[in-house]
């Protein structure tokens, strides 16, 4: 059994390497074949992948909230809460304007769940509802969320929202309801369907607006565009000092 696994792993590594080499050869031109593919629906998410995003804030414009609207539309938050006031409504993603007090330098960036490798929200959750999948996506298992909001106290990014009222007609792909906590899922349904080819709703909307500031990909795959971009340009994490190893990285902050 273990031999079988080892063989399987070696085989994968070999195939990955070979495919990687093939891709590199064509890389300057058009990439004809993606190295990694979406896994079949019956296969669970694996720690071989670590999904993440690189957000180039130099391409992100201050008045634009296309990513926020794209997320709202795809995940159905924000417009079906009728009683909650502005401070009570859910926010899976928001645009933050940052200004350097001394130099006056300003920039704008979207902030959502950063999909930490060491998520404080997962640490503090009493029931295990706040969880991280093997592929690094941090989610809330609303089936066992009791609504204590400890995760919201623990999140350094204010990425989580609590649903303050009864909801109806949610989107089938984004179940959400009163008394439970929720956050950005990295558009997990798309990731599960399309794997490395997935485009989260925020990235899709950003591209549609012509900004192309958000790049999604697999940080564990050295040949992914995300890994290549991170290798070439670095990428900063918000509150890097906390050592949480974030899945969302930024350029130009």
């Amino acid at each position, binding site marked *: 059994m273990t031999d079988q696994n080892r063989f399987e792993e070696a085989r994968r590594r070999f195939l990955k390497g070979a495919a990687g080499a093939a891709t590199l050869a064509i890389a300057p031109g058009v990439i004809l074949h993606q190295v990694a593919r979406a896994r079949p629906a019956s296969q669970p998410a694996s720690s071989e992948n670590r999904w993440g995003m690189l957000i180039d804030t130099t391409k992100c414009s201050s008045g634009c909230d296309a990513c926020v609207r794209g997320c709202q539309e795809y995940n159905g938050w924000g417009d079906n*809460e009728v*009683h*909650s*006031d502005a*401070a*009570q*409504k*859910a*926010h899976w993603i*928001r*645009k*933050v*304007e*940052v*200004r*350097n*007090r001394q130099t006056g330098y300003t920039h704008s960036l979207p*902030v959502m769940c950063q999909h930490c490798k060491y998520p*404080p929200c*997962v*640490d*503090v*959750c*009493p*029931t*295990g*509802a706040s969880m991280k999948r093997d592929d690094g996506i941090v989610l809330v298992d609303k089936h*066992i*969320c*009791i*609504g*204590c*909001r*400890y995760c*919201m*106290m*623990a*999140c*350094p*990014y*204010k990425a989580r*929202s*609590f*649903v*303050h*009222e*009864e909801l109806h007609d949610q989107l089938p792909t984004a179940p959400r309801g*009163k*008394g*439970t*906590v929720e956050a950005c899922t990295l558009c997990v349904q798309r990731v599960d369907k399309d794997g490395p080819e997935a485009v989260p709703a925020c990235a899709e909307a950003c591209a549609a607006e012509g900004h192309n500031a958000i790049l999604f990909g697999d940080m564990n795959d050295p040949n992914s565009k995300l890994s290549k971009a991170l290798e070439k340009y670095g990428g900063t994490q*918000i*509150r890097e000092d*906390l050592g949480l190893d974030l899945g969302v990285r930024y350029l130009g*902050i």
Partner: protein
Amino acid sequence: MTAKVHYREIVQSGTGFWGLLAFLGLLIALGLFAAYNMEHHGHWITGMNQQIVWGTPHVFAVFLIVAASGALNTASISSVFGKSVYKPLARVSAFLAISLLVGGLAVLVLDLGRPDRLIVAMTHYNFKSIFAWNIFLYTGFMAVVGLYLWWMMDPPWQRHYRIAGFFAFLWRIILTTGTGGIFGFLVARQAYDEAIMPPMFVIFSFAYGLAILILITMAAMKWTGRPMGEVILRRLKNLLGIFVASSMYFVIVYHLTKLYITAFHGVERFILLDGGVYTALFWIGQVLVGYLLPLAIVYHPTLGKSRTAVAWASVFVILGGLAQMYVTIIGGEAYPLVLFPGMEISSSYHDGVVAEYAPSLYEVLLGIGGIGIALIAMTLGMKHLKLLPESLEDAVVDPHAS
């Protein structure tokens, strides 16, 4: 050798007793009404929001839970540290600890987004979560203190009660450390993330629990016509003074730490200087009412001897404690998260600005309901169990005193 202390149930059950029960029942009914509404409609009817995720219910709940472990202290001092003066109050002290914990937990549970899923919290555990530890610490506390109480009251077991008392003391220290850790171990917020918070909560608990114990004992003794001498009162109020002074010391060290470290100047400025209601509650509520007034009273040469004044000192400690919880919990949340140190940030979602929060009536009623639960449990306990000593006269408390 101390004189034998006689404990007796409360025999009186006149209009005063029923009136008290009715009043406390009303508080509980109002609390349940609030909880029903919060669950039925959702939390939008409260003042809580995505920034202030723990609001007024948590102020009451954490206060009651912290006070619960502190209420046990009088029993611990007699059983663990051998101060026989406090022994007559050990039963009241232990029972009050359980009552306050039940009241606090009720508020905490009824504020959950999904209180109907309480069973989930009992069946699914993440053992890295302090809340998960607390589920065991709280239920275990009730069991251990219950055992301690039983062994104190049941003659065949009485020779063992010191063991239970020691274990209960250890348990309560761990419990309050856990409660302080809920905040102290949070790296996200500027006001928290301090190792001093768990021990500070332990010290707070000494003061809050004792203040409640003093008031309940004075009221119960007076309303049942049982004598209470000067010795016990003097000891209790001096102890209260020490606990209040220690609390203040910890608060000073906490703020000095934050003031010394440049990164925390923002949050310190907010709490101490320009945080509006939080600043006012800190200086007037926590410091003036909670520390300075009680200290002035208990150490005043004449006021310190007045029963009324000592009762007021206890009331002040409780009010100051509620103010402290409000500043710690809600003030700590109201100060914006620092996403980019040194930068100014803004957004359409309250980034870089102080969060708005106004407690709703529902939240206050729920919190008061918790107090009602704690007090009704205490009243019924003293009524039907041999908790309250027949006399706290000097001769009973301390036969060696003149």
